């Protein structure tokens, strides 16, 4: 894995705890979350319909889509509640000098 895969998202204080921010890179959208035990990243668009998850609700380790209430586990991407049935892709996250990086493949 080369260093270039790590993309800087922003500073660690740009996200409140149990919340998320949207991050666009090239033609893709991601969501980066701050949970009680650290930072996580997933695709930014719901797998059910093309809706941005940035306006969704983060509860514990879950993100709920604002349109149809499909629920995903943020850490594993697993689709937990219909209508979502396709898992959400997740991405590795690291923090370096108070900056958040995600690794995009």
């Amino acid at each position, binding site marked *: 894995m080369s260093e270039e895969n790590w993309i800087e998202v922003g500073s660690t204080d740009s996200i409140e705890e*149990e919340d998320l921010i949207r991050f666009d890179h090239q033609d893709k959208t991601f969501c980066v979350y701050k949970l009680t035990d650290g930072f996580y990243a997933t695709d930014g668009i719901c797998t059910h319909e093309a*809706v*941005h998850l*940035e*306006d*969704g*609700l983060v509860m514990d380790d879950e993100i*709920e*889509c*604002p*349109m*149809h*209430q499909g629920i995903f586990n943020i850490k594993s991407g697993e689709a937990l509640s*219909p*209508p979502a*049935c396709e898992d959400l892709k997740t991405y590795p996250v690291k923090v370096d000098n108070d900056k958040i990086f995600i690794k995009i493949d």
Partner: protein
Amino acid sequence: MKNNIIILGGGQAGIYAAREIRQNDSKSSIKILGKENLLPYERPPLSKDFLLDKKNEEDLYFHSSDVLKDENIEFENVSISKVDFENKKLFAKNDHVYSYDSLLISTGSENKKLSLDNNLKNDIYYLRNLEEAKKIKEIVSNKNKITIIGGGFIGLEIASSLSQLQKKVIVIEIGNQLMGRIIPKQIADLVQNTHIEHGNEIILNKQIEKITKKNGDYEILLNDNSLIETDFIIAGIGSTPTVKLFENTNLKLDNGIVTNQFCETSIKDVYAAGDVSNFYHPFYKRNMRLESYQHAQNHGICAGKNIAGVKTEYTSIPWMWSDQFNLNLQLTGICDEYDEIIERGNDINNGVIYFFLKNNKIRGACGVGIIGKVGRDIRITSKLSEKNTIVDKQTLSDQNLKLNKLMQK
């Protein structure tokens, strides 16, 4: 024990029930009897993305035939003409007889029709199923001035789609506001403004006296003697539960099939779910009948659990949405039992929500905003309501304060 389970009705409640039964019961046979020769599909896109060509037929199916095959769920396209609850049998129009040990009725609801002269019956279009959506899509491509009778969700969603297809659209509503059956007037007015801004004409408080066919077009006479000329008419004037099959049986009907909180009907081993069911909601301590995506899904799942022997109360807080133009409207809970209304926001670009409170607890809320702007707050509202949280009104009314601060850990 291996049971013979039949699900009468191949819509959303039916398919979610079937899969839930299978999750809990690997042995029983599960058969869905559907009136349409299509696997269960999503209806919300029919009036929106399907008309706009953003979604095709294959995008609409809940699950592929492979999923049903893997889970050993049978689907049969058949029309049932008679039910014998005593002997647990269903009789099809093609003379086939189906026996069941447990029956789920998920026949849904059907469109109310305008009472018109017989010679106009085939001239008015309605939208509920895929076939109707296909027909409307095909015909409107050659039409320019379209009239929609009924200013409810379906009519307005079609009006929004047709406007985006550059059609001139007129909506005629009998009531003094749009979506009057369940949406507060404040929200309805915001939605109405958006329609008008996009060029749609909204006519309120008017009844239709007469529709006349003229050289392939139509003239609609309203009760104030005004005349509307139009070349295509679609009506969306509400729906009724599909229960004709059960009239003159022992099944208790009252605005649908009466069920308790376990989806059980008045007859043993017969369950009902989705639009067709007038169910008891233990949280609100009253019966209600809902026509929504979330309800069809969750009620189907709840029925599935109960049929499989996992006794489960239905406690979902009602939630529904409508998308019109770039607006997303959402409603949660019930908005007809309140002693106080609190407004959050006043700009549709940031979202506007009205909370309906009783004894300082949220009973319901309705909001509208540019897509994505109200979903999270409405969802938090559902949770606050469900937990009977006494809410801080300052936080509710101030859009700068986050609603999730009101949630108790």
